[in-house]
């Protein structure tokens, strides 16, 4: 039983990272119907930024986290401006391929500039383990869980309560109509990218701190799994992405705990196939009928 609860804790801390990443996918998809495959690499940039500022400028955890969010946001906006904005009126597949291209550019560019070696992330917060009823939980796991939840609630507030959030929702429903009522589409889309990428930047620093290991290809697998999480929760839906992230994290943990560790990735992708077949809109997705 203790093992069971321990695995739940393991699954939740893994899931919170996937959830943070999945939010970025889902927001960008919701607003311009583009799967931004470079999203996982922004997470990598966030981790490298955290590594740099902590080592060179001796930032503390909070300032490293916040500055990584800013850097993530800035790189998201830059990528959107140069890579996706010129393609806004092109077929969707063009933008999709560009997204994969940007992802490769970031991965291999970083490998080229900073070598593909794995680096050890500076441990600015000393790990403390708490034993609660035989279950081991570390302060960093709690920190990740709390930070992830706070950021998700904040995001929900921005989308539901602010003027900018209303503009985002409007653009996602009908961009042309939104423009007619005076919403600046470019500005709104940039803002969405900034918001999603800031979360990825934060996830990068959290992961660096938790696992103590970063490398230029670190965004690849989590990026794809977060994408699965976003689809599972219903792509385009913000609460769906959070729930999807936690489900994928816990699923992966349980698959490993019953001895099928060799198939843990396969199971995640199998879930993707099943979801696409039986519930293409995901758990929280709106099932809109297409009018012909």
């Amino acid at each position, binding site marked *: 039983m203790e*093992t069971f609860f321990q695995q739940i804790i393991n699954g939740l801390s893994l899931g919170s990272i996937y959830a943070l990443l999945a939010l970025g996918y889902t927001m960008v998809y919701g607003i311009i119907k583009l799967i931004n495959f470079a999203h996982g690499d922004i997470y990598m940039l966030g981790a490298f930024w955290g590594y740099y500022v902590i080592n060179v400028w001796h930032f503390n955890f909070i300032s490293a986290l916040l500055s990584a969010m800013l850097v993530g946001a800035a790189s998201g906006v830059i990528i959107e401006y140069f890579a996706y904005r010129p393609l806004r009126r092109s077929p969707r597949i063009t933008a999709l391929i560009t997204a994969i291209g940007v992802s490769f550019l970031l991965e291999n560019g970083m490998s*080229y500039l900073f070598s593909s070696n794995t680096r050890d992330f500076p441990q600015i917060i000393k790990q403390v383990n708490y034993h609660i009823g035989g279950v081991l939980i570390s302060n960093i796991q709690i920190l990740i869980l709390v930070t992830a939840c706070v950021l998700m609630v904040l995001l929900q507030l921005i989308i539901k309560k602010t003027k900018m959030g209303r503009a985002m929702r409007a653009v996602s429903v009908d961009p042309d109509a939104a423009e007619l009522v005076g919403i600046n589409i470019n500005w709104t889309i940039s803002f969405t990218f900034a918001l999603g990428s800031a979360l990825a930047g934060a996830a990068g620093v959290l992961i660096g701190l938790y696992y103590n290991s970063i490398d230029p290809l670190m965004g*690849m697998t989590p990026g794809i799994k977060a994408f699965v999480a976003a689809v599972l929760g219903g792509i385009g839906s913000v609460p769906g992405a959070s729930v999807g992230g936690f489900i994928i994290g816990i699923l992966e943990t349980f698959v*490993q705990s019953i001895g099928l560790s060799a198939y843990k990735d396969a199971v995640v992708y199998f879930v993707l196939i099943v979801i696409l077949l039986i519930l293409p809109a995901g758990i929280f997705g709106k099932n809109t009928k297409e009018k012909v």
Partner: protein
Amino acid sequence: MKKTMIKKVVSMAAIVMTAGIFAGCSTAKTTTKGNQTTGNTIKIGVNMELSGAAAGYGNSQKQGIQLAAAEINKDGGINVNGKKKKIKLIIRDNKTSTNTSASVAAQLVNNDKVAAIVGPATTNAGTAEIPNITKAAVPSVSPSATDPAYTLQKSGKVQPYVFRACYQNNFQGSTAAKFMTNTLKAKRVAVYADNSSDYGTGLAKAFKKAYTGKVVDSQFFTAGDKDFNAVLTSFKSKKIDAIYAPGYYNELGLIIKQARQAGINVPIVGSDGMADPKLAQIAGDQNASKIYYTTPFSDDVAKDNPTAVKFMNKYKARYHQDAPTFSALAYDSVYMIKTAIENEKSADSVKIAKGLANIKDFDGVTGKITMNKNHDPEKPIAIEQLTKGKVSNSFDIK
């Protein structure tokens, strides 16, 4: 319109292909087998994983290769039958892909006309290279392809142009198994192997075959994984005496960290992929105790080996970091080619292959090397122990 286009393309392709076939015939008839070395340089090709998943190892190896070549050239070059010839390295990236490795090999042997190849680092990319180098009769020395079958043909005969500088898996795996039983007295062992390469799965298989105790659980991870808590938690509930975890330092560092933080304090035994200063950095010094790994290149053993001391000092001076095992193996690979050329008094590729097959008591950084009939180097093996991130002990395994 479209149809004529397709026709055109098809006929063009046909012409090109036929031309290719004829070209192949004519070269095969007019020249002798292999690549000859003319002029004052010896071209050595490097087919290496410089980007992609195995880039970390590939780049360490590249540094070892470049150090060796620079050193040899500084001394005037390789002595080919009384005449000193400098090494010219032609370094190409195979992107950790089997397809690219095959085409890189073809480019090196056919266009660049190299006399020998160092690389690739991984068994998969290495195996992809074999048909092209065998056709061209150019030998390759892989610093780190460990699969037992890598140097063998399907029939069990040795591949005439394929060599390696590292141990093959069976040797390392069974050494670890003996160490578990005899020294650690471990009766219940969990195996946690990297299944993204032949290296991890091969070692796990060899270990299980040789280990006489009980393997209570056998699990796998993939290169690039960061979270191992789930499997470690399930190990914890199974009352194990030790963990055998063959893989590379990137993941092993994290496994050690997460195991210790989860309260698993049993010995963790691994393979030479762990022998890197980065392991303790990633794991954290306070976590890296009771860690053992099999290695050809231990600091302790190296102290008595002047070649190794020289190598480690030069490496540090040039790259400002401690030499990882991969660099040492790559460095040895270049010197093995040099020795082969000097023994055969010729830098023609076929002769180099012959020289490599006959290497005996070669004084390498990773120990005295003798090539056996399967083109596997025979050299001493040691097991190093880490305590608080530092090597605290080393065991000679007979």
